[in-house]
């Protein structure tokens, strides 16, 4: 049996250039294998064993094209005992063009002996250029798998691939399935040992895939390199088929969810809006017209707007304009025999305000017929006492002591509750403690004209009210003009909260009846004296 050459012996005489024809159907496979090994096999010469047990060893021709390169191919089996005449020999060398400018020379051995080392030598012009030791059973290069079929499955992300194993003497083949989306460079490879079908998973539905396969013998008995790839198979995975039930369910659920969220949002929209768009407080409603009319110019707004006055807060000016008030005398309730000097001056006419009144004070200045008998203020007795005081004033004009200046700012009135009538002590004593603060002070004011103001001092007999509302009065002048018919007297009843002024004329002093004139009621602020108990000194106040 010849060791070298091809089995089809009658092709031997063919010219080198036509050598590529005689392989027939296998030429394509042969060329693809040669190309494959040209890229992947670094050894020289590159040898591979084909299915029909042809060992082909080839090498790339170096040098210029066309020159007849004389190569010699020699082989030797490493045997410890000579097998026979076929232990070593030489084989013919042929040439082949594999596309482009590449040419190869090759030699083939048809007798294949396994499990024995084989040494091959390629020599050119007597010089060995390539040498290699190999086992024939380890250089298998099979044909690609046959009948590669790809099928779609019920799952759109899966493909079933099956093929037929190439002809081989042994069963132990390893397969590799390469699949990638058509046009994509990134592909996956699935290794399949022995079995000739596989299920590809994790695919993209509705995409076009390219599937290829190749085989390699693996094992200790036989091994080799990867076969060329099969021709690619193009297949499209089925698109995702949405189950109508799932679709409708999903739509319904999403609709319900939407409605729920809308309801929640609408019911809490104010809260949500406050959270999302917090209201930034602006002072515009407190300053009407400030921003809209005057553009933020506060001075202009203050000057031009009448509403600015109204803006003055209530607590700012609780005190009215100080009105000069002269208190001529303060009538204290103890009996007129005390050293009271009373100066009655004209009170300020400005003191008029409608305020709330104590029922008691009203009673004291009104007609006795109006009052009731609820309190110790016996109107007649009260009026009598007032008249008595006035008379005393007239009679004893000098009894007033030199004035002492007081601060004009202080206004203090001390409540004296001991000015009760003696006969009413029993009655009043019970009410003393209760009504102490509400005991109005009776002060007689006598108006004497506008031109002068006298100094006068009023001594307070006793003023130990806990709440002492004090008014200070000034008496610039020393003299006290005698009383005459020009005097106008005003009885002031100080209830601690309001002062009632009732004018009285001097001519009527003798007249016990007091004409109920207009009652002027003032409200004043009670300033509690801080540390010292000041003697009450009445001073005339300029009534202008």
């Amino acid at each position, binding site marked *: 049996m010849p060791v070298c050459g091809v089995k089809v012996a009658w092709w031997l005489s063919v010219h080198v250039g036509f050598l590529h024809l005689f392989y027939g159907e296998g030429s394509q496979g042969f060329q693809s294998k040669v190309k494959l090994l040209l890229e992947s096999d670094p050894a020289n010469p590159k040898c591979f064993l084909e299915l029909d047990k042809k060992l082909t060893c080839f090498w790339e021709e170096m040098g210029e094209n066309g020159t007849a390169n004389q190569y010699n191919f020699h082989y030797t089996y490493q045997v410890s005992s000579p097998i026979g005449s076929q232990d070593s020999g030489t084989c013919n060398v042929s040439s082949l063009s594999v596309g482009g400018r590449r040419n190869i020379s090759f030699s083939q051995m048809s007798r294949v002996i396994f*499990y024995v080392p084989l040494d091959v030598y390629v020599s050119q012009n007597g010089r060995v250029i390539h040498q290699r030791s190999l086992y024939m059973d380890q250089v298998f290069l099979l044909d690609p798998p046959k009948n590669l079929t790809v099928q779609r499955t019920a799952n759109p992300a899966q493909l079933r691939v099956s093929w037929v194993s190439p002809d081989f003497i042994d069963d132990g083949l390893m397969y590799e399935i390469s699949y990638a989306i058509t046009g994509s460079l990134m592909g996956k490879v699935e290794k399949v040992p022995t079995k000739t079908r596989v299920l590809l998973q994790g695919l993209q539905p509705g995409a076009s895939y390219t599937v290829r396969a190749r085989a390699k013998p693996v094992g200790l*008995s036989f091994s080799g390199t990867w076969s060329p790839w099969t021709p690619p198979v193009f297949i499209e995975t089925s698109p995702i088929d949405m189950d109508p039930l799932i679709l409708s369910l999903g739509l319904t659920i999403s609709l319900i969810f939407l409605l729920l969220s809308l309801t929640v949002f609408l019911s809490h929209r104010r809260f949500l809006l406050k959270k999302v768009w917090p209201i930034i407080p602006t002072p515009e409603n407190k300053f009407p017209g400030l921003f809209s009319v005057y553009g933020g110019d506060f001075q202009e707004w203050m000057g031009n707007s009448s509403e600015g006055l109204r803006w003055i807060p209530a607590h700012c000016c609780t005190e009215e304009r100080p009105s000069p008030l002269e208190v001529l005398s303060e009538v204290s309730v103890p009996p007129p025999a005390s050293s009271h000097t009373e100066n009655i001056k004209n009170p300020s006419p400005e003191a008029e305000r409608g305020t709330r009144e104590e029922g008691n004070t009203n009673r004291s200045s009104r007609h006795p017929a109006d009052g009731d008998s609820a309190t110790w203020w016996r109107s007649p007795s009260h009026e009598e006492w007032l008249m008595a005081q006035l008379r005393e004033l007239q009679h004893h004009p000098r009894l007033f002591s030199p004035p002492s200046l007081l601060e004009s700012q202080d206004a203090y009135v001390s409540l004296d509750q001991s000015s009760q009538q003696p006969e009413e002590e029993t009655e009043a004593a019970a009410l003393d403690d209760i009504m102490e603060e509400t005991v109005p002070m009776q002060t007689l004011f006598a108006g004497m004209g506008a031109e002068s103001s006298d100094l006068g001092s009023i001594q307070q007999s006793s003023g130990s009210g806990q709440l002492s509302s004090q008014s200070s009065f000034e008496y610039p002048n020393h003299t006290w003009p005698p009383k005459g018919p020009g005097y106008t007297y005003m009885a002031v009843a100080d209830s601690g909260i309001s002062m009632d002024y009732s004018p009285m004329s001097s001519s009527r002093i003798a007249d016990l009846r007091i004409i109920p004139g207009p009652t002027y009621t003032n409200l004043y602020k009670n300033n509690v004296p801080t540390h010292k108990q000041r003697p009450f000194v009445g001073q005339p106040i300029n009534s202008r």
Partner: protein
Amino acid sequence: MCQGYKRSLKLQESGIFALLLMVLEWAQPGLPSPLRPICDLRALDLFIKEAQKAEDAMRSCKDACTLTEPLTVPQPSVDYNVWKRRDMEQQAQEVQSGLWMLNQAINSLKTSINNTVLLSHIDNSLGNIISIGQVLRSLSFQEYTPSATASGSTETWRVSSASALFQVHFNFLRGKVRLLLSHAPVCQQGVS
């Protein structure tokens, strides 16, 4: 009448007993039960890998491992077409005789090699050869006891170094032995 009955019963008992003995003699239950066939080739693959390691280890030993006289070893080479044409019995015979030869040859190395590492390889290889024999027996191959004259019938080689010996040993195991085992008819029954 009763006595006659008793006597016939005794005869029957002894007859049954004798029959039982004959059956048992024929079945020979005293013999060891047949081994379950070892069709898995993974054990053999392991032996082959160990033989490769032994060959690599022996390659380093050149001078000390040179043998004084050549050893007879089986021919590892396989011409596949030729091999295929042989029947199973011949293949089994060739494998068994080859294993026997290897056993002899490796055993003789023990005296000449002192390296402990190499000695361990030698012992391992010897044990593996015995295990392969067991596998062969389990596959119902006819046991073949090679004789001195049988070495001439099968093709043999002669090696002069330990490395060559272990190379032959490695190739023989992964060649002929494995081919035989992988195509054992006992294992082919359930395989499609």
